[in-house]
């Protein structure tokens, strides 16, 4: 059912999602003062697809 065309179309999306997650995780690890416990944010970033990293960037990282 997953044909080659579908793979080619879906793959970039999966890569973008992965990149978003990795960026958020790297930033979380380097962040000395996240807005809440780190393990919680790690779980949110990994478990909530797309929304998790966005929530972290908006709420979790204290943009100052």
């Amino acid at each position, binding site marked *: *059912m997953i044909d080659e065309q*579908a793979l080619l*179309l879906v793959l970039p999306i999966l890569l*973008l999602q992965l*990149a*978003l997650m990795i*960026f958020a995780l790297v930033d979380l690890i380097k962040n000395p003062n996240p807005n809440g416990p780190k393990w919680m944010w790690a779980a949110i970033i990994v478990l909530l697809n*797309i929304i998790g990293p966005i929530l972290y*960037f908006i709420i979790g990282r204290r*943009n100052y």
Partner: protein
Amino acid sequence: MKQLSTLLLKEWRENVRNYKVFWIPVVFILLGVTEPLSNYYLPQILDAAGGLPDGAVIEFPEPEPEQLLVAVMGQFQTIGMLVLVLAYMGSIAGERRNGTATLLYARPLSFTSYFLSKWMMASLIAMISIWTGFLAGYYYTAVLFSAVPFGDFLLFAITYSLWILLVVTMILFASAAMPSAGLTAALALTVLIIAQLVDGLLGSRWIWSPLKLPNYAAAFLDIGPDGGAFVGAVLLAIICIFGLAAFGIWFSKRNRSKAKV
């Protein structure tokens, strides 16, 4: 204006180092491709979910590619705008509140350059976001369904860009006028949502309303908007952008004394 390049460099570094330059476009790209992808794979998704009883045959009407692009715009109008508001609500109010603005305001700062540097950077990222998002949506629609005439698509995206510039200006105006990031978001969202609602319900004759720009953008994918109404709305939108920016500059200067020392 001598300070503008200095402040722009600061804004650029901020947006790169807090990854906004990366993650906001990614969100818009994902919004852009979700619509065509999910429509294309809807039958298989339903099938995989085992939702259909044996023998049931449901005809999925093939969606028009224009409808898909309008649906993408619908995503930008809700989730996309929310993301922009949340990402830039603290631009000025947050800097004032956490005290980082003090060391800027204690200098002979040009508040015009200060406001414009923030406006330009937020606008740049918003433009990158909606264009990459729309182009991704356009490409996926073309591959999975059929291509919308590219000229129509350009007019659609350009018109919507003007609307987003107005939204970004509104956000920065609110951030200059309001005491905190939270109130900025509240003001910007309330104005945008209520104004659109009122315009939608009562404003059928307000043809020059900039709030109709998204509708006019969508119309370019169809038969095109009424020429006079479109030009009027564009001009009014540009006037609103200048007006909001001027008030934003004025407010950011007036509220400088509210910066935490």
